[in-house]
């Protein structure tokens, strides 16, 4: 089980007009692995993550999810594959026109055709897990950023995904709220969830990741265990980047 490839990326490239954001990216994410993607802004980290569930359509290359190439399916089949990948955004993107509970219930009911009761039960369980079962009937706008992001994680989990993609989940938060979100993510990792996390939280990467990928200029320049990446990076760009971060602290 541990060795099963959940995600496999081969020769992925993405251009916006003339601007090449991703250049020949390769990589594999195995079941249960937590991958943290770090690097300077403009490196293409978010674009890479968004290519994984085809929110961005790659210009060329393959993105295989459990062996199926996503770049060559569309319509119903793409939706079927997507619902098995959860995504958490920097700006939460909760649906403001629904209560917290409804945010969690919408996709299970509409996509998985779950019954109203079952969906509610699952939703309440997940809300409890992120410590927000008391906010089930609140609207997102009445929650703090940290709470909204925890709801967003619960919403993605409600679809019972096989992999969770996090796109800088704490970047839009006030500093005092970062902890509560990271805590939830850490628990998830401990439970064995496969995760790809684009983040600037080096502490989190260091303690939770199985592998850290360093990206710059559209390439993955180095991938190593967290200890090596932070204590003894090989690539010059990585050295420079990590050196600056340690200095800043």
């Amino acid at each position: 089980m541990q060795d099963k490839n959940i995600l496999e990326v081969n020769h992925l490239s993405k251009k916006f007009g003339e601007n090449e954001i991703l250049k020949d990216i390769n990589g594999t994410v195995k079941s249960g692995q937590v991958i943290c993607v770090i690097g300077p802004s403009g490196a293409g980290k978010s674009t890479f993550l968004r290519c994984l569930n085809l929110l961005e359509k790659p210009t060329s290359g393959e993105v295989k999810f459990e062996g199926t190439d996503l770049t060559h399916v569309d319509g119903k089949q793409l939706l079927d594959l997507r619902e098995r990948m959860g995504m958490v955004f920097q700006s939460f993107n909760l649906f403001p026109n629904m209560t917290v509970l409804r945010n969690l219930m919408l996709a299970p009911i509409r996509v998985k055709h779950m019954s109203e009761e079952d969906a509610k039960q699952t939703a309440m369980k997940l809300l409890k897990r992120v410590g927000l079962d008391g906010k089930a009937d609140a609207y997102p706008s009445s929650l703090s950023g940290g709470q909204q992001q925890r709801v967003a994680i619960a919403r993605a989990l409600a679809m019972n995904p096989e992999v969770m993609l996090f796109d800088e989940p704490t970047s839009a938060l006030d500093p005092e709220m970062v902890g509560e979100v990271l805590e939830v993510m850490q628990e998830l990792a401990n439970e064995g969830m496969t995760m790809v996390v684009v983040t600037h939280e080096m502490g989190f990467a260091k303690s939770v990741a199985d592998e850290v990928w360093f990206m710059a200029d559209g390439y993955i320049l180095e991938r190593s265990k967290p200890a090596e990446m932070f204590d003894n990076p090989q690539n010059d760009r990585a050295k420079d980047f990590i050196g600056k971060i340690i200095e800043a602290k």
Partner: protein
Amino acid sequence: MKKNVKAIIQTILLVVTLLTVGLIQTNSAAAADTSLQRVKQRGELIMATSPDYPPYEFQVNKNGKSQIVGMDIDVAKKVAKDLHVKLVIKSMNFDSLLVAIQTGKADMAIGGINPTAERRQSVDFSKIYYSGGQSFLINSKDVNKYKSVKNLRGATIGAQTGTLQYGLAKKRIPNSTVKGMDKSTDLVLALKTNKIDALGIEKPSAEAYVKNDPTLKMIPSGYHLNKNDVGAAIAFKKGSTSLVNAVNKSIDQIKKQDLTSKYLASAGKYMKVNTVNTSMWHYWSYFAKGVEYTILISLISTLFGVIIGVVLALMRFTKQKWLRGLAISYTEFIRGTPLMVQVMFVYFGIGVVINIPALLSGIIAVSLNSGAYVAEIIRGGINSVEKGQTEAAESLGLTKSDMMRYVVLPQAFKNIWPALGNEFISLIKESSIVSIIGVTDLIYQLNIVRADTYRGVIPIFVAMVLYFVMTFLLTRLLNYYEGKMKHAG
């Protein structure tokens, strides 16, 4: 830029197609003469008239019920009786009468219509059933100034648009300025408020006004006219020879027995009934009916306008190029043409193919029109929903239609609610245009009351207050829901 050019071309193509279809239909409609046969088979004689022209035709409030009466109506009743069929009256603007018979909305049109040479080119006429002669109405205070028609040289003269009086005033009164309006009631008001110096009008009508209003006087026109040009005749669609011949038999009898004198006398009696009580309270049922129809039209048109608008807006977001093109062309075309023309097109134009009643035509036209505007508002609303929302929905595996239904449209509607409210309010006001095809909305009823009471201004004021009350209440209602939506996140 290229996109624009394409949209324009598509729009032009659409227009051309519509026109071509229209022309083909018009041509094929001119077949053998079955006019009489059709009326007999149907058992009904459908007559178009413009009941704002006493004593020819006007509305009275008889035992609380509104009724169209007058000399012309008696003539038509006699004709229907002789044909052994039922008379059905359709009321509309005078301008629309001839169009109505040309497009088959009615079998004949009556309304003090003078069978001039120009009109004979487009419709057939019966024999003349009445010759009233021409005259001018003036203000009593001007009696010394305008002793005869010679004094009208250089004056401003009013006449109903599309009538003989209009043409005559233009041709026969030297240096005069002729002002045309749709309704004789408006013209009388213009005269009384000195916007015009004299009003060219048929003698029986002039007499009716003078009897009911001491501030008005009448002077003879002094025109020397071909008798064929001045009398009143019934108009038919070209080629209705069999029906015309049958009607002419009745007219022969009317003339032989001088029935028009009798008809005029009874019309005079009705007019006395009418002017006994000219308080607006007495006419509340007229206004109530007008409000009822205005609300009915606005409500249904709003509903369908929103449905059409949503469909059009969604078409703009599909991958199918032709669907997008169709939606763009439709919106551009509707926004580029006046609602008035659209109303007439649905009623008269499409009416050639399928006979749509006036009320339904009005609702269809107003809905189609509103749909185009609502579509643009909704499109703006959809664009205003953050991209993150659709991405979140996509990442959860929601289908496009579920995403629209549960995530995008609810938020879009909340954002555009004020703009949508504006559209609904202007719909109430703009729906008044349906009065031109005879839908008894508030404007139409307003004109009827003005014609009945010989009072020009007060009914306008009443209608104004009623419109304001309607839009004000709607604004309150919309604000209430806006507040409610705000509460919900």
